[in-house]
């Protein structure tokens, strides 16, 4: 039971922060299938930073982890500008741009990782190995039966994610900028008439989604594999897209969708463990979050309301 909660949380939270990024982008009117590529590129930047810190400086442990997380955030943000540029400046089809960004991210990170490993660190490898992230338990709270698991062996990044998520929620729902962003996705003409630059709003929203994806991607790298390798592209970006569509493009419900995915996954894993099934059975279990998504999606789709101008290029002349 404890491991279900602990592993569930450490999977749900990175998924949640990536989904928040997606919400920002889509609420502003830009379809974002590129989350997968953004999180991968962010994790690549973070991994590279961690590797450089480890090799050339004396900074170690927790400090290097925070620097890596920050680097991943910046890396994802910079790479997201490519998607923003294609969708907003070059008016490309947003879905296609997203797919292309993903393909390019896979190719680019694989090439750069190999190249940098060979030329900078002098070894042939397709991954950056990370230091194992420390974990901690909150005294007293962690001793509560059952619920205590929520406070046991927490990754430091989980706290970071919760804090960032709270800030992002506040910005989106309570500030003028958030209001304009949401309006840009529903009625960009009105935003324009109010004297706000729609394209700037959308551009910044896509950059935010890149930053969040980069952060989430780096967290996945720390929690799942302790290295940054091509296996970072295993569909978590797409899963978070499903999460926020299922959450109806709202941060609150999306949180519960992510929790559901994370716990379905960890519960499945511990089921395989408890029943002592061969490892091949974990493949069947891994389908659980996806099957749940499909079924739930069929039920909620009729009631779902996407932002009205989602995927449309903003055209000043249109009414």
């Amino acid at each position, binding site marked *: 039971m404890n491991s279900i909660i602990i592993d569930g949380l450490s999977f749900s939270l990175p998924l949640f922060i990536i989904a928040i990024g997606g919400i920002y982008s889509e609420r502003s009117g830009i379809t974002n*299938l590129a989350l997968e590529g953004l999180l991968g590129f962010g994790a690549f930047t973070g991994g590279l930073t961690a590797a450089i810190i480890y090799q050339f400086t004396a900074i170690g442990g927790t400090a290097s982890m925070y620097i890596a997380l920050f680097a991943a955030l910046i890396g994802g943000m910079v790479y997201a500008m*490519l998607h923003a540029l*294609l969708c907003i*400046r*070059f*008016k*490309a*089809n947003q*879905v*296609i*741009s997203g*797919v*292309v960004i*993903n*393909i*390019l991210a*896979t*190719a*680019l990170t*694989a*090439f750069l990782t*190999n*190249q940098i490993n*060979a030329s900078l660190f002098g070894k042939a490898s397709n991954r950056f190995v990370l230091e194992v992230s420390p974990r901690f338990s909150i005294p007293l709270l962690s001793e509560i039966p059952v619920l205590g698991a929520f406070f046991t062996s927490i990754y430091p990044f989980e706290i970071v994610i919760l804090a960032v998520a709270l800030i992002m929620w506040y910005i989106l729902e309570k500030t003028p900028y958030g209001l304009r962003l949401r309006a840009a996705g529903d009625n960009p003409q009105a935003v324009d008439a109010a004297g706000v630059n729609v394209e700037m709003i959308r551009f910044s929203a896509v950059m935010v989604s890149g930053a969040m994806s980069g952060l989430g991607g780096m967290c996945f790298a720390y929690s799942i594999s302790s290295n940054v390798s091509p296996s970072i592209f295993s*569909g978590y970006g*797409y899963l978070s*897209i*499903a999460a926020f*569509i299922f959450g109806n493009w709202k941060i609150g419900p999306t949180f519960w969708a992510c929790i559901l995915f994370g716990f379905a996954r960890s519960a499945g894993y511990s089921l395989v463990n408890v029943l002592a099934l*061969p490892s*091949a*059975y974990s*493949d*069947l279990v*891994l*389908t659980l979050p*996806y*099957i749940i*998504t*499909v079924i739930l*999606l*069929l039920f909620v*789709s*009729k009631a779902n309301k996407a932002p009205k101008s989602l995927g449309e290029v903003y055209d000043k002349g249109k009414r």
Partner: protein
Amino acid sequence: MKHKGYKKAIVRILGPGKAQYLRISLFCIFISLVAGSVLLLLLGKNPLEGYVSILQGAGFIPKARYAGHKSIFTDFMSLVNYTTPMIFASLSFAVAMRCGIFNINISGMMLFSGFIASITVGYSSIPAPFAQILVVLIAVVAGAFSGALIGWLKHRFNANEVVISIMFNYIVSYVISFFIQTMFINPTTRQSERVGDNAMLTGVDTMIGDLRMDVSYVFPLAIIAVILIGFMFSKTRIGFELKAVGMNHSASRYAGIRIGRSVIFSMALSGVLAGLAGVSYYLGTFASIQPRVVPSLGFDAIAVALLGNNNPLGCLLASFLVMTISNGTTYMSSRLGVLREIASLITGILLLFSACGGAFKALADKYKEELDNEIDGGESK
């Protein structure tokens, strides 16, 4: 005045007129080759030598030396063998896209039909020509089924087809991985057991004259598919309806086109083509399935179709282009000592620029309009 010359040049190269889309695609290819050259220069290699060795590796230019029983023709046949699944897959995407559906499930459909065909016919002892025909038929049925299912879900439940497709990709990949690992695994290769030669859609190491080469039996079928799809879109009623639905849902409904039927039909057809891509990939180019891996070809096909402007003939040419780069790079990387990954990087850059194709067109059209206005303005004075 100089500024105007630059606009004129853009209008001349990319502006409205004959074969505008073709010219834009060629322009995209050109600038990505330039970008690739810059990349090679940065790595300290000679780009010209790089591109020549890509063409040599793909069998367009003779290499300096060949091993026994090999020649330029062998390399080219191998390129054809690798390109066949890509042609089917890019057609599959184009058919759905023309109807306004974004089919990102091609990889999953390929895996599904390849797996079904492998376990039913691939491991059987049905004699050669029948087994191969059966493989193709199974692919058609399995593909049509999975395509129609997604089309139906989209129509019936208004489900977002992109998310559904992505979820199906993972479900199919994990479930098939489970079956392969429990029943069909080859312990040494960690892949599924090789399918029998009787069911293979590629004649591996077939001797033709003095040469030993891989012959794709389904390549002619791919060409036929290109022609048929082209005919369907330009000459038939159903093709017209698909295009109409893709352009404007409401207008088509008003004109009396049955939207649901068009959506499900185009997804089923897309599925058939993806199924053919799957068998020509898993029982042709390769002979076994790697568990837990979705073929990246299904995603690359999206961009290939985009480069080919969702036009059947365009898909054919774009498939050859992209596969030439990826096939030829193996030879280039060994000749020049660059990393193998550079192939997908050059392809990625190519796709990036083709995604901007619409912007190039808009830019050229705008300049044309501006120039025309200036001429009109000059005359009226």
